[in-house]
């Protein structure tokens, strides 16, 4: 899984994920997970940037209010956790399938 360190949020590039897209049996399950994951990643980035912006303007003294920044940070944090959980599930599913012996 390639991780891009150059951007503010931790990004896991979805293109690297579906190595298991080979077999047709998995592709339907992969579609659902993949889409959810892509959505999650997109959200993480947006919320992360928003939180970043609000905290910065709070520190600069006067734009955002403390509670705005807190809420933005919490939302970003939760969406990141959500994304991690989804990713874990995808990896688990892949490993289960890859581990099957015929």
């Amino acid at each position, binding site marked *: 899984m390639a991780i891009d360190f150059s951007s503010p949020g931790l990004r896991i590039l979805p293109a690297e994920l579906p190595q298991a897209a080979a077999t047709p049996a998995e592709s339907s399950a992969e579609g659902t997970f993949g889409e959810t994951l892509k959505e999650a990643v997109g959200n993480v980035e947006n919320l992360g940037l928003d939180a970043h912006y609000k905290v910065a303007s709070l520190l600069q*003294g*006067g*734009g*955002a*209010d*403390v*509670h705005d920044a*807190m*809420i933005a*940070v*919490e939302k970003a944090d939760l969406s990141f956790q959500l994304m991690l959980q989804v990713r874990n599930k995808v990896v688990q599913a892949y490993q289960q399938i890859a581990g099957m012996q015929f």
Partner: protein
Amino acid sequence: MSLFSLFQISGSALNAERQRAEVATSNLANAETTRTAEGGPYKRHMLTFNSQPASQFHLLLADSLGGGNTPPRGGVRVGSVVEDNTPPLQRYEPGHPDADADGYVSYPAINPVQEMVDLMGAERSYELNASAVQAAKQMIQQSLQILK
């Protein structure tokens, strides 16, 4: 609307009320001062309060822009400290060193009761604004609770 601006607003009020108290105290202390460096009796001092502009125009503008990033200041400041030009009280005391040719001494036109009332008013307002500072502090601390 930033909660941090509250400290500035209340701070301005604390400052203004303190000056008001100082002026009242000074007037009280000098209620019987018949001779000053400028000659003549002590002149009562008064001060004026002005609110720092939070004009309707500003409010309307902020409202129509929708973003409203610049909250109106809305604090208070002391406009000026002026001398009261009420003519001094004349009392007939021929033996007094500051008596004029007719034996009258000029005393400052200060009513101690009025100054006391003013002083108490300043104190009460000061307390109010001090608790406003506490309120602001509490609210900001509470918002930190959002993150546990």
